[in-house]
């Protein structure tokens, strides 16, 4: 693309053609940004023609999970409560992708507010697995995983709180990474559980994931939990190999994993060993409690984070004659069952030991 032998507009048209052919049966997207993508691609081609550096992701079509804010472009979290809302700012990852020359081709479907593991739990209908339409793509970032697997986009971004990138990547046969917490700025990612949420890539190769992480990673003053030290380029270290690297092999994983998956895991350890890594058995007894802890921490944080959807500043409002009644009616009409269930669970957890004071009463 940088040499001018490949035109960004042709790449975008090829992807839009694949979307036109199969999106009807897959439903990876909440919104396809055909016109915007064509305009962005033309700008990349113009930059190349003018002899300017179009950036490391020049003309690369990317699918964005629809919980990342895009200025002036609807961002829904696949929830009725945000339907039609146009954010007044871009997420940091969106700004960084634009600066790197990437072309956003659409906003992808997810389980409502990223709560789910199948992308069936969306207010706008389920996404299907491109490899077998009778199966789910995984979730919650199933739309981005399916978009990359179907060739609708070269790369995609998802978010992972409790497996929402890693699991759909596995189910769709693509590369997916949940980076270390703090590696990628969460500014403009609509929060589910803030202490666990991370944005990460979906790609067809490990190299592409490294490239994408190099672009979107790094400290951001707008996210106080982003790591305030420069990170080395992952692309630069990719061909260093694993000679001398020590890899932990967890021996007390909770039961229930598919034997086929465990077999492949062992094969991966064999491959690492052959490549010069040392495999060390480790025990993580706390893993037995991981799911329980997750189902306390994530809903508690979610109930707090989702308090902002109250019909005042964005999205849906169901009018009533006082604010409390308006909040409660709006949230009842706007949230789906799974989101309500988690808000209730989280509110219950946070209110354990809470006593309503006589002065404020029950309201």
């Amino acid at each position, binding site marked *: 693309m940088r040499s001018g032998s490949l035109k960004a507009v042709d790449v975008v048209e090829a992807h839009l053609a694949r979307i036109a052919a199969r999106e009807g049966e897959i439903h990876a997207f909440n919104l396809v940004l055909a016109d915007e993508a064509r305009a962005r691609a033309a700008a990349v081609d113009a930059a190349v023609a003018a002899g300017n550096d179009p950036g490391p992701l020049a003309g690369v079509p990317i699918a964005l999970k629809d919980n990342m804010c895009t200025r002036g472009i609807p961002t829904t979290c696949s929830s009725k409560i945000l339907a039609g*809302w*146009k*954010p*007044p*700012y871009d997420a940091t990852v969106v700004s960084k992708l634009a600066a790197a020359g990437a072309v956003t081709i659409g906003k992808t479907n997810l389980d409502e507010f990223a709560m789910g593991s199948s992308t069936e739990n969306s207010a706008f209908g389920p996404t299907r697995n491109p490899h077998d339409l009778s199966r789910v793509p995984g979730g919650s970032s199933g739309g981005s995983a399916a978009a990359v697997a179907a060739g609708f986009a070269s790369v995609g971004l998802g978010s992972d709180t409790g497996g929402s990138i890693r699991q759909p990547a596995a189910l769709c046969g693509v590369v997916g990474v949940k980076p270390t*917490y*703090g590696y990628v700025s969460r500014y403009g990612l609509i929060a589910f559980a803030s*202490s666990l949420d991370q944005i990460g890539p979906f790609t067809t190769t490990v190299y592409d994931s490294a490239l994408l992480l190099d672009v979107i990673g790094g400290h951001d*003053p707008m996210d*106080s*939990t982003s790591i305030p030290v420069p990170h080395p380029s992952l692309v630069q270290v990719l061909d260093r190999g694993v000679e001398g690297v020590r890899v932990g092999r967890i021996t007390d994983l909770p039961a229930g994993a598919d034997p086929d998956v465990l077999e492949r895991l062992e094969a991966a350890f064999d491959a690492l060993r052959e490549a010069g890594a040392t495999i060390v058995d480790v025990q993580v007894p706390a893993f037995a*409690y991981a799911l*329980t*802890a997750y*189902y*306390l921490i994530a809903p508690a944080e979610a*109930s707090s984070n989702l*308090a902002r959807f*109250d*019909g*005042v*500043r*964005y*999205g*849906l*409002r169901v*009018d*009533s*004659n*006082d*604010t*409390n*009644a*308006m*909040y*409660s*009616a709006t*949230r*009842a009409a706007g*949230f789906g069952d799974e989101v*309500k*269930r988690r*808000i*209730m*669970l989280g*509110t*219950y957890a946070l*209110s354990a030991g*809470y006593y309503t004071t006589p002065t404020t009463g*029950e*309201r």
Partner: protein
Amino acid sequence: MSDRITAADVVKVAKLARLDVTPEEIERITGQLDGMLEHFADMDALQLEHVAPMTQPYPLQNVFRDDVVEVGLDHDEVLAAAPQAEDGRFRVPPIIGLDS
């Protein structure tokens, strides 16, 4: 019905969560929360008296930026995305002065 959680607990939590719930939802959520609480029982059984509480795992400190004016969100753009706005502010129903 459960001894861990009652329909009255669910009604109270729904009020705290600012969530209108139907009688059907109260019944369903009561059962669902009960199931979750049963799941948490294995964690309750842990001996944690001698473990110091950890509010967060990262050694974070509050961060202040330099006190200089920066460009914020566009006022009109923010209000344009609101359900109701008036005179440059969000418009809401009455907060006080109502009996109900």
